[in-house]
């Protein structure tokens, strides 16, 4: 899992059925201390969590966990928005995001 910021989204009408009714967000890994996001932009499937652009989220980037959350039958999904992060505490200082 890694911390990322939602930096955009993708819309695609013609797609495989498992992606129907699910949002496709573009996320970029983020440094929790400085809040700066950089590096490779990845696409994450967002199911029940209403994360939007600018939110700081927790991304699950591994096959079987996404399958567990999305449902039992096999799904070609790997990167997944897992949570919206409210606060990160590192040592004495705390960063509030929501």
């Amino acid at each position: 899992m890694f911390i990322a910021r939602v930096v955009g989204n993708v819309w695609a009408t013609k797609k495989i059925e498992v992606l129907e009714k699910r949002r496709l967000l573009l996320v970029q890994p983020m440094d929790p201390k400085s809040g700066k996001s950089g590096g490779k932009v990845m696409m994450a499937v967002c199911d029940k969590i209403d994360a939007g652009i600018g939110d700081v989220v927790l991304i699950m980037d591994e096959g079987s966990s996404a399958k567990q959350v999305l449902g039992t039958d096999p799904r070609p999904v790997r990167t997944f928005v897992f949570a919206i992060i409210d606060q990160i505490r590192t040592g004495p200082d705390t960063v509030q995001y929501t």
Partner: protein
Amino acid sequence: MHPAKVIGHVVASQKDESLLGVRLLLLQPTDWEGNPIDDYVVAADSVGAGYDESVFFVESREAAVAFPAIPPIDAGVVAIIDGVNLDPDYYGR
């Protein structure tokens, strides 16, 4: 899931029989702004993507489950991209 541009398709009459009926697309992987990166990829097509369309594909064993026969492939096109929005306020800041 990575974005790519369809730049052609691959025809192979001699192939593993589980690949029969699977259309193989030649993809040029791109970044989310459309600039080409990495080398070409051959991916199985499950959404009927055509030439010069931008798609995104899955690159791992999961790609095979998008197909009924679960063929021995490791890359599959799973959607045709209509549009990408990279918010300038947050992207790369």
